[in-house]
């Protein structure tokens, strides 16, 4: 990795991640950040699935949440990559798509979502696989419900597709993410995500 995974979190945190004393806004890296309770972030998603009808509507509910996250990843990380902070701290070290992914990982790992501990980006196959340790969904779920019968890290699943839209695509939803192993299912602390290019139906785009 060319991007320094140690220095970037230190530099990120040194920016002061509090809301402005006057406006209460936290404008950093070209976006407006805020600091929310994980119990709110996960709780609202699970409550949404419940209100949609629970198990019978889980698939469509999950699509809504994953899609929102994929759009978010595109808007958030494209904003971050266009920011002065990125230009100063990260852009000078980037010489390849892999380096750009390194930069995204370094920033993502500062946000409290859990830590991307490894990833493999196959540019030829247009596939990405990465492992997240301590996804914030997992601890929330295991403490309340025990092991899950299905993967639950919806935000990360959208982010997987969103990374690839940004790295190898030209617009949102060219890629799709999947959680192939979830700590909430295994009882462990690792989740694995995969993203690949969406197949074109009937050879049409």
């Amino acid at each position, binding site marked *: 990795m060319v991007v320094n995974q140690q220095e970037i979190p230190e530099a990120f945190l040194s920016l002061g991640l509090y809301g402005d004393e006057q406006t209460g806004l936290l404008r950093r890296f070209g976006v407006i950040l805020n600091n929310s309770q994980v119990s709110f972030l996960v709780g609202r998603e699970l409550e949404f699935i419940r209100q949609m009808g629970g198990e019978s509507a889980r698939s469509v509910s999950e699509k809504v949440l994953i899609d929102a996250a994929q759009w978010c990843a595109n808007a958030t990380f494209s904003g971050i990559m266009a920011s002065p902070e990125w230009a100063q701290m990260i852009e000078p070290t980037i010489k390849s798509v892999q380096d750009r992914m390194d930069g995204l990982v370094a920033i993502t790992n500062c946000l409290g979502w859990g830590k991307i501990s490894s990833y493999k980006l196959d540019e030829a196959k247009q596939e990405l696989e990465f492992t997240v340790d301590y996804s*914030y969904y997992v601890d929330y779920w295991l403490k309340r419900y025990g092991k899950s019968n299905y993967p639950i890290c919806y935000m990360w699943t959208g982010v997987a597709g969103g990374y690839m839209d940004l790295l190898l695509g030209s617009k949102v939803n060219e890629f799709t993410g999947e959680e192939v192993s979830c700590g909430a299912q295994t009882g462990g602390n690792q989740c694995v995500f995969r993203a690949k290019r969406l197949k074109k139906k009937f050879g049409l785009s």
Partner: protein
Amino acid sequence: MANPMIEKLKASIAVDAARSWISVGGEEFAYHCDKFNTRIIKGLEDVLGPAKARELIMRTASQNLLEMFKSFAASTPEFQAADTAEKLTGLTECLKLLGFGAVALDKMDGSSTQARSTTSYLAEGYLENMQRWGWPVRKAPFCYDLEGYLQAAFAAATGKDLASISVTETQCRTAGADSCIFEVEVK
């Protein structure tokens, strides 16, 4: 002069870089941006409708934040010794610290308060989406989680339960107003 509640909250912020884990006031937090939060709400509104989406977001926000405020208050003598107005000021400062925007408490009149924000982060995010993605001017307010956070702040400051506090955003910048206005009633 530094607000002792804010200083205490700041001092409680802990980061474990090895896990990418952030804690505030003993509770796990995470940074997200306005794009994520506005898009999630839009998704919920598209599927559930605005009224149910508002209720879901507001309730989840208020219940979770009230638990944290209660825990924080129990371990903060300065909070316990403060009067209701001082507690509310401290709690709205906490909201600023977390990046939710600034809220001014105007027209406190017995059980009624009008709160005003010109920088609600959700409104800021929605306005950016209008510029960048062509989202339309809204017909109704949008700052559902700030409604919930204010409900939690008033409950914590008055010692009442959430059911005793009603918060309604009556004007919103996303619908063309100059400020987001919240009417708060304490029963």
